[in-house]
């Protein structure tokens, strides 16, 4: 049984991954035969590519913010909507709704909302007298990344909330009863019962959110194309543009290896931190 599964895995994952490794040592425009350049792509990435480090910084900031806010909000909503009342089921459906939309539709909705001159967000701020908050959201290097973080969190929080609800509903009610008998208030119950018992779910949510935020290609590509001045460019958009816009497939393959290594490192780090807690 395991041989066909391995062959399928090897064909779909292992072979492309090894091929990527091979291309990363070449200069290739996708047309003529790849030219072997050794480790030049890697050395260039490390020593003569400010954009790569800028993108790495963007990606770390983007991932950290998305992981913190998406995990926080999804846990909060899961706790608030844990009981299976009619109202809660309705609200869960409502919060989950963005997840079923296509990412391009979500990007278009937020493009309209963020429009600096006619978007609903700035109109709202201007109406209530908070003109200072009416920013050039996607047109400014300082705010564009945060605006996309907000859209990403809005897009996926409902999905993570459902995972949390499934996890929280597995916590035995007796634990809460015992805590109540011991005189624990709501916060103490959360700190001593809910949070430790939800850690395995949190590990899954964080790992999934991290990978998801590394792959937040669709929103960024549709909303800003990585601009302005590469301030919203992350690894997935950079690799796509290097390969399919500039036809530098060898260089893009080298960038991909760095991205994979980074995801592996972050996932390992998260698991290590969370493992000490549960």
């Amino acid at each position, binding site marked *: 049984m395991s041989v066909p599964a391995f062959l399928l895995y090897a064909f779909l994952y292992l072979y492309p991954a090894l091929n990527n490794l091979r291309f990363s040592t070449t200069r290739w425009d996708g*047309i003529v035969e790849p030219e072997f350049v050794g480790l030049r792509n890697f050395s260039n990435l490390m020593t003569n590519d*400010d*954009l790569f480090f800028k993108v790495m910084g963007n990606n770390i900031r983007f991932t950290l913010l998305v992981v913190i806010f998406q995990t926080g909000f999804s846990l909060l909503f899961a706790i608030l909507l844990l009981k299976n009342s009619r109202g809660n089921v309705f609200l869960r459906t409502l919060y989950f709704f963005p997840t079923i939309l296509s990412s391009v539709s979500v990007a278009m909705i937020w493009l*309209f909302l963020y*429009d*600096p001159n006619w978007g609903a967000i700035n109109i709202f701020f201007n109406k209530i007298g908070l003109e200072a908050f009416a920013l050039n959201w996607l*047109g400014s290097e300082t705010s564009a990344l945060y605006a996309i973080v907000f859209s990403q969190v809005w897009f996926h929080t409902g999905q993570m909330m459902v995972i949390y609800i499934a996890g929280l509903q597995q916590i035995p009610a007796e634990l809460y009863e015992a805590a109540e008998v011991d005189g624990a208030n709501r916060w103490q119950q959360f700190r001593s019962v809910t949070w430790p018992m939800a850690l395995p779910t949190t590990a899954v949510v964080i790992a999934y959110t991290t990978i998801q935020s590394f792959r937040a290609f669709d929103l960024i590509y549709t909303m800003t*194309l990585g601009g302005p001045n590469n301030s919203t460019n992350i690894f997935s958009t950079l690799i796509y543009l290097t*390969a399919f816009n500039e036809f530098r497939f060898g260089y893009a393959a080298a960038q991909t290896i760095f991205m994979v290594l980074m995801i592996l490192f972050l996932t390992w780090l998260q698991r290590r931190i969370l493992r000490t807690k549960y």
Partner: protein
Amino acid sequence: MKHMNARAFKALIAMSFAISATVVPISQSFAAGERLGARCTTEGVMTGTSSTSLACVKGANGKLTWQRVKLSSGNGRPVAALTPPKGSIEFWHWRNEDRATLERIIANYEARYPGTKITMNIMPSGDYTATGFAKIRANPKAAVFATFRGAQFNQFAKGDMMTDLSNERFTRQNVISGGMIPGQYEGKQLGIPYHYLFNNPVYNTEIFAKEKWSLPTNFTQLLAWCQAAKKAGYTPLAWSGGFRPNAGQMLNSMLMNSAPDYATLEARIVALDTGKAEITAPWFKEMANKYKRMADANCFPDNATGVTDAAAVALFATGKAAVIPTGTFTMGAVKAVNPAMTGKMNLFSLITTDEKPQYVGIHNNTFILSVNKNSTATDQKIARSFISYLLTGPVAQVFSVGTSQHTTVLDVDYSGNVDLLNTSSWQAKKTLLAPRFLWLNQGVRDLQEDALIAIVGGKPVDATLEDFAKQVKQKLAG
């Protein structure tokens, strides 16, 4: 004698009638003074693209006169479509907006040649750029395909994917030879550019008439007009700084009169594209300063760097902006937002010099049709037949009217689409082949356009150009 005089008089009347009956309809289609043999002032200007059109040509005596235009490279009249063998092929392109019109044309073609079938395969333009090459190379049935002018056409040509169409009669006799340049590679005609579009700004004729504005004819007038339009409550140029692909269209007009001649302009751009020169070069800096002066004169929308393409179109279509600096291809989107804009648009010359301009507009020839070299001989024959069919006047007319695009095909009557008709005279003006597509390295061009967007957004010119020059250098080294 008296008898003879009466006969001569009758003959004179008959001759006058015959001459006027022949000449008047032709001359009526021209503006005053544009008659065969009459003097003209601007060399190279044409009155149209039909077989009766005239061109301003310098004679052996050095005088400029209107002469019968010769737009094709061959001597004969346009030829009919080639008869195809029976069989089926695929036609690959990215223009979903042309689907209905092309389906109609294909249906007519299939009805005319029973047993021959064309299946269209339309991909989204982003996917087509990214993966079209690999997919078409792996599919010999894709016997006809289209490419974008510039990097994509060169990619296919470099990959030896196209047959040579240089010696086809339809190439020599059915199309405007000046529009064929983007389909040439190493001296061979590897594709036939089908679109003849203008990457000029488009203006709202109703607003200009209402405000009694005249079109600016130099840079000083342009800046003054921007200030006047802003004061009157309009956004002068609905420029979408938040969407580089369309924001970059204005670069064509900014480059248009930036060099003493086309060869110099081409050499400058190639030098930037290949890293032999940097964007800190004086000529580029001068152009960047003009962007800044335009921004200072309120030519652009508020928060210009955040204005999306959809917002820019909406601004223009709803009459809040007087000009949209993209091109004729935007007219369809404008009319989709506000059908009342039909017939109220024309092309605007964005002149950025105070000297006599060399060019008044930009044209581009793209949607380059090619025959797949990897297809079988039979499929290639069908492909050539289908292209030759598209290159006949009546079929190109169906395409033009249905898609709101001018074509490179001769003898097309644009009167079926009021916006095409209004702008068709621009095919006769002295326009420059869009220089933006001289950049073959998309990554380098993107960075250079980003620098100009940042300058409009308020960044200082010198520091911004230096920052982006460094980024370009690193990109080219990678």
